[in-house]
């Protein structure tokens, strides 16, 4: 991430200087900082709503039922997570929300799942293998009705706005399989294995170390 971020910054500034877009680059920085805050704060309501519902679901045992239901798949994708851990059920709900194109629900459920995964993490600031696999499922996410682009197609007078569903589902399924496979293979590379927080000795339970 360090290198990517650095590269984006340096390339923008250098190219901006050469093309005379430097003013626009600076303006964009200010603009997007504001956008980022708007997006984050915009999540508060929907986030609180789903976290509340999920808490009831958890205590009512629904999450556990879901977790058990997909045991064969989760054992393969997330071998390091106990099969009836709430993380599994929450991740399943996030994936289903993605499939159905429920963007409003998918993000809060995904963040709830991250929270559960973080409980199993021995490190404060380093991603576990399970997190990377979960992110791979999400970044390539399959959507059965990509509503945004369908709406644009309809507005522009397409004869059949939905005709791209099958091609998009095919491409995103391939993308998902590739991303998960890549995550699974890369976690075996020596350099990446070394940074696996699960290899750390069990840390003492200290809640106050959140610098």
């Amino acid at each position: 991430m360090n290198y990517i971020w650095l590269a984006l910054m340096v390339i923008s500034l250098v190219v901006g200087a050469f093309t005379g877009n430097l003013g626009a680059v600076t303006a964009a920085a200010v603009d997007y900082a504001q956008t980022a805050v708007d997006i984050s704060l915009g999540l508060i309501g929907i986030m609180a709503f789903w976290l509340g519902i999920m808490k009831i679901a958890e205590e009512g045992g629904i999450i556990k039922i879901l977790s058990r239901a997909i045991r064969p798949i989760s054992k393969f994708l997330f071998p390091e997570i106990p099969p009836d851990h709430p993380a599994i059920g929450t991740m399943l709900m996030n994936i289903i929300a993605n499939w159905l194109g429920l963007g409003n629900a998918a993000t809060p459920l995904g963040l709830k799942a991250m929270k559960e995964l973080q409980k199993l993490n021995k490190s404060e600031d380093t991603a576990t293998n399970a997190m990377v696999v979960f992110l791979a499922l999400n970044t390539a996410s399959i959507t059965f009705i990509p509503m945004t682009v369908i709406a644009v197609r309809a507005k522009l007078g397409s004869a059949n706005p939905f005709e791209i569903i099958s091609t998009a589902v095919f491409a995103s399924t391939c993308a998902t399989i590739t991303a998960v496979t890549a995550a699974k293979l890369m976690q075996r590379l020596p350099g990446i294995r070394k940074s696996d927080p699960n290899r750390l000795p069990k840390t003492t339970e200290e809640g106050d170390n959140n610098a």
Partner: protein
Amino acid sequence: MLNSFVVAATDTVQQFAQATAGTGDSLFVTIMKGFSNLAVPIILFVVVVLGFFKKIKVYETFIDGAKEGFSVAVNIIPYLVAILVAIGMFRASGAMGFFIKILSPLTNLIGMPAETLPVALMRPLSGSGSLGIVTELMTKHGPDSFIGRLASTMFGSTETTFYVIAVYFGSVGIRKSRHAIASGLIGDLAGMLMAVFICHIVFG
């Protein structure tokens, strides 16, 4: 609660009927739309009712969970500012043009129209940015042209990788993402290539 559920369900059934009668949507689309519209009401109903039968104080428990909504959203801010600012600057600088020049000989080789390359490059960086490009392409070439269909497929085939990584990791304070970006981008690349491939077969 129950009342609004009934209203939502009736609405959905109506939409269902309209969808099947009028527009000639395929059965698959109709079914998936029905699922999407009903999923949230059903989840809410099952969770709340089951919670009640399990003798959970549903209201208190909801408040307990919902309390954390604020802190999760606030935790994301620094991560999202960092990535969106960098991406915004990158877009404004016009650096994308250089990458397109460098990569265009390659895309011609695999039968990908040069016009759609910006979609592929922008998709992992910015959802609104790539949607803008897709819209522009469809306005210019028509939504039912090969370029329009390919661009739509590309947009629908992956998520905005950098946004997802910033938000998901940001919410729990993960700064060292290890191989998450690499695997996400490899997935995006596969999605884009497969979009070209399948569009040639289906629409070519």
